[in-house]
């Protein structure tokens, strides 16, 4: 072959005239790029031509088959395109070594490529698999892709001449990464890891067991529809569960609806005023409102029947026996400390304990401060003193004082023998108490009315107002305010102060307790008496009424009343002693509760006034013996 080529070259060299000026040269060496067989029955070789040297160049391919020296030229330059050589079946021998050379020839010369050894058995590169189909299938509710394809039609699989193995790749639309799967020799493959509602791209390629991979097949698109089979069952489960929970919750709420309502929407306490028409507020007329707020016939005037006001009077009559009780009860103010306030009692009964204790001391102070304001008789003074002493002997600051006072009521009225000389402070307390007594017994003719509370009342302030101690006494008249906790303020009658300085009063004055207002003020109203004696301070006595006599003071601040005491105490009471007329109002206040319980003593202003059926009980004193 080389000889032929050399001859050709020489001929070409000689035949081609030498040209100058133009740069012509023999062609460059071509290069055999590749040879490929799609089915191991034919094959094609391609070459790459070099520079043609400026002249038309022809290319030729020559080959040798092993075991022979025969040079063959390419049988087909066209089937496979340009710069190619196609070997058909007849020219193709497998397991035979082809030695191939390409020659580029132009007028100036030719050039040979490097020879290449080619064995068809090893250059098989099949065509792409054909008919790639992808189907979405379902396996127990889960979707999967079934990819199926066919071998390239030229590759003869059936006879076993070629054995192909396949490979496929999948990716989601829009993504970059392919997921490759090796399928072996089968022509079908299942892909399970897919999502519903997505579009997938599938490609397949093949390769003979020893050869080159084919190109990837054209992309097959597959859209996986939304699959709710599995999700449906899940949704059903979720719905059932949630409905059960809801039903249970509703049932719980229903069971506790009442308490829930209470919790979320607490009842708003409305105003509850008995006998009060709320409509008046809605009407918005001020007079009506005011008139509505005002209790009719309150405070009761003299003209009104006091009995309607359900005022009870407490008369304390202390007999000798009761004096003994007093002795016994000298423990102290401490004793009553244990007594607890009634749950249903007003503040008066509770606080009065403490008030009494405070008044123990405060009264003393008052007495001091008052000095000679009080003009009580010696007797009374003495009596008071003794009383005060008896009180002061004990611990003042205990509520027992009140109880003791309660207990000593009788003794106060009986004679006052118990009392010993009192120290100065006691004097003051006595004075104070005396003063209170005086104020108690004063019955203002009842003229000026205070605004709301009406005329003729004593405002008995049970609150602690020690600061007021010195004032009222020094001021005298109009202030009359109780000191420490005892404020007796007479807001009506200005004649009172004069009365206060009365050294003594002989008559038993009665004061009706109107009510105990919020500030622990026992509003007392002097009771009108038919037998109005000397002054206007005649005790108000109901004729024909029964009196309840205080039999004694029981434990727990109970006043034991004895009904059926007739006749006017009046002078008799006075005879008993002025001291008798003095009651510890605070104790009265204290015991009011009990009085109520016993004889239905009432304080006007309470919600359910209880009328006295058996009469009334005279009040003894209105003052307290402040003891410290």
């Amino acid at each position: 072959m080389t000889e032929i080529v050399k001859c050709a070259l020489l001929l070409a060299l000689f035949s081609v005239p030498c040209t100058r000026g133009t740069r012509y040269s023999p062609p460059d060496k071509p290069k055999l790029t590749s040879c490929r067989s799609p089915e191991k029955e034919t094959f094609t070789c391609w070459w790459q031509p070099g520079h043609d040297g400026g002249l038309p160049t022809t290319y030729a391919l020559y080959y040798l088959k092993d075991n022979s020296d025969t040079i063959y030229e390419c049988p087909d330059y066209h089937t496979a395109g340009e710069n190619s050589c196609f070997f058909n079946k007849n020219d193709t021998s497998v397991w035979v070594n082809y030695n191939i050379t390409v020659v580029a020839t132009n007028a100036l010369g030719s050039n040979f490529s490097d020879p290449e050894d080619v064995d068809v058995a090893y250059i098989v590169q099949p065509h792409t698999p054909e008919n790639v189909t992808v189907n979405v299938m379902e396996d127990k509710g889960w979707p999967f892709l079934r990819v199926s394809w066919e071998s390239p039609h030229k590759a003869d699989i059936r006879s076993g001449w070629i054995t192909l193995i396949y490979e496929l790749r999948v990716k989601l639309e829009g993504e970059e990464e392919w997921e490759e799967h090796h399928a072996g020799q089968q022509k079908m493959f299942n892909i399970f890891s897919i999502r519903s509602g997505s579009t997938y791209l599938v490609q397949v390629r093949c390769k003979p067991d020893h050869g080159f991979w084919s190109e990837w097949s054209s992309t097959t698109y597959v859209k996986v529809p939304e699959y709710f089979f599995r999700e449906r069952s899940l949704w059903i489960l979720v719905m059932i569960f949630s409905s059960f929970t809801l039903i249970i919750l509703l049932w719980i709420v229903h069971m506790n609806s009442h308490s829930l309502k209470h919790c979320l929407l607490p009842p708003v306490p409305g105003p509850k005023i008995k006998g009060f028409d709320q409509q008046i507020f809605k009407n918005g007329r001020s007079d009506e409102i005011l008139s509505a707020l005002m209790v009719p016939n309150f405070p009761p005037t003299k003209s009104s029947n006091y009995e309607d006001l359900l005022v009870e009077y407490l008369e304390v009559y202390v007999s000798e026996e009761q004096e003994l009780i007093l002795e016994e009860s000298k423990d102290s103010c401490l004793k009553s400390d244990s007594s607890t306030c009634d749950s249903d009692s007003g503040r008066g009964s509770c606080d009065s304990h403490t008030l009494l204790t405070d008044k123990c001391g405060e009264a003393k102070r008052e007495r001091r401060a008052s000095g000679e304001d009080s003009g009580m008789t010696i007797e009374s003074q003495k009596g008071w003193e003794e009383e005060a002493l008896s009180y002061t002997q004990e611990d003042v600051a205990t509520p027992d004082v009140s109880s003791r006072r309660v207990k000593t009521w009788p003794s106060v009225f009986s004679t006052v023998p118990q009392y010993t000389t009192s120290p100065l402070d006691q004097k003051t307390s006595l004075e104070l108490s005396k003063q209170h007594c005086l104020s108690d017994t004063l019955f203002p003719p009842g003229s000026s009315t205070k605004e709301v509370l009406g005329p003729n009342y004593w405002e008995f302030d049970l609150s602690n107002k020690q600061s007021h101690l010195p004032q009222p006494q020094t001021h005298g008249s109009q202030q009359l305010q109780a000191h420490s906790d005892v404020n007796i303020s007479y807001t009506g009658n200005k004649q009172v102060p004069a009365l206060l300085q009365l050294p003594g009063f002989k008559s038993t004055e009665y004061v009706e307790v109107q009510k105990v207002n919020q500030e622990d003020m026992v509003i007392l109203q002097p009771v009108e008496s038919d037998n109005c004696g000397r002054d206007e301070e005649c005790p108000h006595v109901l004729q024909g009424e029964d009196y309840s006599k205080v039999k004694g003071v029981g434990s727990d601040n109970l006043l034991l009343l004895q009904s059926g005491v007739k006749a006017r105490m009046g002078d008799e009471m006075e005879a008993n002693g002025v001291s008798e007329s003095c009651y510890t109002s605070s104790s009265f206040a204290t015991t009011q509760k009990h009085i109520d319980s016993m004889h239905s003593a009432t304080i006007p202003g309470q919600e359910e006034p209880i009328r006295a059926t058996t009469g009334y009980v005279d009040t003894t004193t209105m003052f307290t013996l402040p003891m410290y």
Partner: protein
Amino acid sequence: MPGLVLPYSVMADAAPICSYGQATCHVPSLADLFDRVIQQSSRMHGISTDLHSEFDHYLPSKNFIGKQRCHTYAILTPDDKEKAQRLGREQLTEVILRLLMAWGDPLSQLHWSMSQDQNQDFNQYRSNKALEISDIVRELKDGVIKVAERMKRLGLNGNFVSYISPENVDPFSAISFYKRGELNSVDHQDLLYCFRRDSHKVKTYLRILKCSTFPTLDC
């Protein structure tokens, strides 16, 4: 029968495997046998390709123009699909067996020669591979014989005769084709080149044989 020389292994394998009739004994079907031999031939070809490729990296290929390269050139093998199909089962089987038998000893020699060569560092790997190949070739040969006999029993291979021409049995003649005396690495490459080709032939022929015997779509 003249020339009927069967190696001992063939004679020993003539008896069925499950002659004692054991219950757990599984008698492989012809299709199973075919699959087995095809699998082995594929493996054999794979190893030969690996070995040959190693040599190619380190040694330039030779141009064997005008020279008979392989010692099995005398064995006429179909170089075409049509030719192979025209050959028929029996002849095809024979060709396979010839090829396999022809390569038994040269491969042993190759292995021995490679193990002896201590100059190369990677010789151990190659030596092991050569040993593996020789083992496979031997097993494959036995398997093909079994297949042929089964086919014959089944009436598919009526004219099959386990006939081996004497000249191929000579162990020394084959290797002397490549070199007289000891083989060197160049000789190794030539030998492996030839063997690679022949193993490919065997693999292909076996497939054709199977697909012609069991024609399926998926052959």
